């Protein structure tokens, strides 16, 4: 079957032009904006990140504050 034979019978050339222009318009808005958006993000560089919270074991022994009864031999 050739492409020309498989076209939807009810679809007119005008319908196709209108829908094609619709897609073109939407993509011409969304993609340039997205590109601008990404380029701006790159230009600005990474924002400062708050001091990361360290996990794992503490470097030195943890001492109980004086007078506390948390650790009693």
């Amino acid at each position, binding site marked *: 079957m050739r492409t020309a034979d498989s076209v939807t019978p009810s679809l007119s050339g005008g319908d196709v032009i209108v829908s094609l222009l619709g897609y073109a318009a939407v993509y011409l808005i969304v993609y340039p904006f997205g590109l601008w958006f990404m380029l701006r*993000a790159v230009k600005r560089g990474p924002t400062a990140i708050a001091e990361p919270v360290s996990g794992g074991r503490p470097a030195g022994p943890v001492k109980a504050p004086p007078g506390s009864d948390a650790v009693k031999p």
Partner: protein
Amino acid sequence: MSIVPVWTVILGAAVFFYVVLDGFDLGIGILYSFAATRAERQTMMNAIAPIWDGNETWLVLGGTGLLAAFPLAFSIILPAVYFPILVMLLSLVFRGVAFEFQFGDAEHRHTWDHAFSFGSALGTFAQGIVLGAFIQGFHVEGRHFAGGALDCFTPFSLFTGLALMCGYALLGACWLILKTEGALQEKARRWARIAFLATFASVGVVSLWTPFVDADIARRWFSWPNILFLSPVPLATALTGFLWWRAVARKQDVAPFLYAILLFTLSYVGIAISLFPMIVPHHFSLEQAASDASTQIFLGVGTLFLLPIIVVYTGWSYWVFRGKVKGNIGYH
């Protein structure tokens, strides 16, 4: 033995999941422009950000399932609703990118706010037109749609477009009741009540309008003894409405959403009763529009293998993001 019933269930389930799931996040888009503050808008978006795109995948399953399992129906219905489908897709593009741009682009936030709310509203309206046009049926000659591209815009389909906007707004407001707290939740209850009254009235109007414009549907519902077997459907709808109203009045969090889904289920069942077993109303039944049995079996094996996986990971993502949305924490 025919596998058509299996595909009928798969397609029916896909459309139903789509309507309920994407329904509530489109509904939040419709309600979005009624939010008063930036914080409220942020919370509304955060309430759907992790799940909205997953919800939309059901539309893909519905569309490709129709193409693969019922190609004759696809080739008639899609050309008949060419422009509403086009408008829906373009609207969903705007609404989809709005999530990403809105979170990262403070200067143009208002533009993307509008893209989100108008995209959601217009996309829903277009879906409602598709529904209305489908119920009314299409001008078919032989095995082709023989009408014009603008035939689908009728008073009835424009009404179902508005009705679906009310319905999705109801689902969205109920989702907000479920996911938020405090002042926004109170506001969502008010939105939900308004949307509920509009939805309930619309369901009533459509239920009376369809038998008037369509003798087949009237016969299906009102002939004896059908009227006896089918009268529980409108009665259950009325009961669900009562339970919904009571759940909101009692300030319950989850029940309004569940009753709203039940309301959608009953409306869906109502449409199915009106049209079954036709997939192109008045012209072709599911059996007549089905693709070859070997095609349906081949595709059915893959689909029935994948569907449980999709359901499980969807359920899991809802579980991960369970609980109330807090104003300052969100997944982008």
